[in-house]
């Protein structure tokens, strides 16, 4: 079972955005994290979380769907192996990550047995923290800025996407060699 090519996947993502626009909504996934904080009672400590979360119920349902979509794909639609550029796989091996071409996620970071490894745990928590903090500070993530915002020719989204790539390149080229 081959992965879908970029020229299939990209247009389907655009279609997702248009379907949401036609039902009156704006494509953006990271705002769900704020909604979940609000449901968890974060409004008690910050105004930022004081809003009617029910207005975002639709987006939480999209999240539930994405979870189901992930399950269906993993079980029935994929052999769960990602083939990457051989040079990239070679470089990952020098970092001790040897599961390229045989897994969907690196076993060295996302294997259940790694959860007792403090270094891996720190990578997952800090990575998640930066994603959550950065997305809200920047007012959106890959879907809200790189797809919705850039499609709508928003300059702030261009600045945010440039930031995404500065951060990503710094992480991979300067921090990974220290980290692994």
């Amino acid at each position, binding site marked *: 079972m081959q992965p879908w090519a970029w020229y299939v996947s990209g247009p*389907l993502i655009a279609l997702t955005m248009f379907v949401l626009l036609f039902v009156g909504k704006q494509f953006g996934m*990271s705002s769900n994290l704020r909604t979940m904080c609000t449901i968890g009672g974060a409004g008690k400590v910050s105004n930022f979380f004081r809003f009617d979360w029910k207005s975002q119920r639709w987006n939480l349902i999209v999240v539930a769907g994405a*979870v189901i*979509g992930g399950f269906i794909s993993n079980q029935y639609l994929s052999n769960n192996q990602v083939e990457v*550029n051989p040079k*990239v796989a070679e470089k990952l091996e020098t970092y001790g990550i040897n599961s390229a071409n045989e897994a*969907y996620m690196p076993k060295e970071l996302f294997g259940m047995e790694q959860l007792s490894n403090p270094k891996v745990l720190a990578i*997952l928590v800090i990575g998640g923290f930066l*994603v959550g903090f950065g997305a809200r500070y*920047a007012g959106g993530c890959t879907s809200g800025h790189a797809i919705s915002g850039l499609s709508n020719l928003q300059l702030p989204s261009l600045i945010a996407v440039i930031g995404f790539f500065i951060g990503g390149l710094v992480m991979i080229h300067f921090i990974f060699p220290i980290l692994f």
Partner: protein
Amino acid sequence: MKSIVYLIIGVFFGIIMYKSEAASWFRIYEMFEFGAFHMYGIIGSALVLGAIGILLIKKFNIKAIGGQRMSLNPKDKGITRYLVGGILFGLGWALAGACPGPMYVLAGAGYLPILVVIGGALLGTFVYGLLKSKLPH
């Protein structure tokens, strides 16, 4: 009734993310190594088609279902928040290898350590809420 529509959109989106491998840590790493065109093709084609579609929507004043206006809100002006927030997001995106859509897809796919990433993302969102008034925007 409308809930079913959102659920179907979500399932559709989840399958696209997984089958395109945009949800794979390896693909994100490969993208930042400039090792393949794949991720650039996905994001690039989505936004080129998106931009053409939105231009047409504006030109012909196309309305959403029920005659309501399309939710195409302009972003607030500014530089600092987008650049600094964007860089922090990018650092996390490359480190965890997942952004806020694929996180849920991966949870459904059974990669349970992603729940730690989601927990971290909720914490990051919460801390932003606490610090918001003190941060330059």
